[in-house]
């Protein structure tokens, strides 16, 4: 019961802040609503018993990525009202079509989810007894079952980092 109340409160908050992100007039306010949104997503993770993911969500998204957004928004002057941004090249119809496709997809997923609830995939190798808490379980899964995707992701980040440095300093 308590869990359900908490879930629906957090879900309502996430949706509410999500709507505010795209409706806020001031871009800095949008970014702040995005932070609040991420914090409530972290709260959802806590509710699911995934404290590690929750903390990482706050550190990486709220603490890292959105700070960069804030910098960009602050340094690029966006004090003009949104109307002033009217751009000839903007393809309103195309954007609308894409959003409708994505909306249809989300609705389809929701309908299928209700008709046929997903089964939890069992881990291929059973977790060892010493993997008692959340962090150890995540670590165990990352370095056994998901080793290849994990390493590929780390390579991707490394390449992105090198690329950023090369772009920033062309004379290197």
């Amino acid at each position, binding site marked *: 019961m308590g869990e359900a109340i908490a879930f629906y409160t957090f879900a309502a908050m996430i949706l509410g802040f999500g709507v505010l992100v795209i409706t806020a007039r*001031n871009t*800095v*306010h949008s970014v*702040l609503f995005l*932070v609040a949104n991420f914090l409530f997503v972290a709260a959802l993770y806590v509710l699911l018993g995934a*404290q590690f993911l929750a903390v990482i969500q706050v550190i990486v998204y*709220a*603490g*890292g990525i959105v700070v960069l957004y804030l910098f960009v928004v602050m340094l690029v002057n966006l004090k003009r009202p949104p109307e002033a941004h009217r751009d000839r090249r903007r393809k309103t119809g195309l954007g609308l079509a894409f959003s409708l496709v994505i909306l249809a997809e989300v609705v389809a997923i929701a309908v299928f989810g209700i008709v046929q609830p997903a089964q939890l995939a069992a881990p291929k190798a059973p977790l060892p007894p010493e993997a008692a808490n959340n*962090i150890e379980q995540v670590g165990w899964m990352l370095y056994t079952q998901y080793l290849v995707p994990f390493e590929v992701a780390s390579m991707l980040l490394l390449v992105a980092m090198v690329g950023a440095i090369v772009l920033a300093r062309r004379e290197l």
Partner: protein
Amino acid sequence: MIDLIVLPLIKIVFVLTGVLITVMYLVLLERKVQAWVQARLGPMRVGPHGVLQPIADVVKLFVKEDVTPVRAEKWVFTLAPIIVLVPSLIAFAVIPFGPEVNLFGRPVPLYITDLNVGLLYIVSVAAIGVYGIILGGWSSNSKYPLLGSLRSSAQLISYELAVTLTFVSVILAAGSLSMVQIVEAQHANGVWFAFVQPVALFIYGVGALAETNRNPFDLPEAESELVAGFHTEYSGMRFALFFLAEYTNMIVVSAVATTLFFGGWLRPFPNVEWLSFLGLVPAWIWFTLKTFALLYVFLWIRATLPRYRYDQLMQLGWKWLIPLAIANIVVTAAVKVILGS
């Protein structure tokens, strides 16, 4: 019911009151220590040797006029000091002041909670505090605060990396992220991690000075260049919140250093039998003493060292501390594997 709601609430009230009173007297202590270093007396007028000075200061801050600049972004301007203060206060949720004690026939742990991701929780909470500083500077709609907040956030983000990397080597040494278990690991090993991880302690110390905007890294509020940095336009109680947050952060980083490197609540030499009379002093007093010793180091450094130049600060962070911290992790992991097999 009692264990779930009443007891934690009582503990929260105790910790918050304790922290706020400590902050008040930390400011007095700072003024006194500065004065003694410079062969002055410091505050002497209010109460004997100025012991009532903090109360006078608080009253002054409360009754001061609260000015909001005309062109400021009112909503964000009000929110910024709150965003700075709240994270530094809730960081105390995972700091262990002592082990379980028996109080009125009931086992009471002397910490609010023991998360199994305790150390990461502190990192994540600290990451939120940056927003307040950026927004405070931006919403003032004034040049000096904006420059101060840009400097400050760049500094915080740079040094946060180095500090978080030192945590990794401590976690490797302790085998856990829970603050309580890190202290217990130091008990089991019979040695403070300050001696196991001296490099990590050094990097943490430098990073902690930078993260709390203290001398010699107090560039965000360098008076000679930026008036007062990101809080130039703030006055009255809102300025007091920034001030409170800065000193609370000092206490947080000192308490974390005590927990990670100086054995937390453990008495000195916890495994030496003939020193067991030291155990007569309650554990939380040892914790407080160690934390205050570290806070004193903060004040001492402020009275001793001049301010860094901004480019030197960035060079130190990115080119020295972060590589050193990564090397320290590699060495720690290698030693751990060799000793383990």
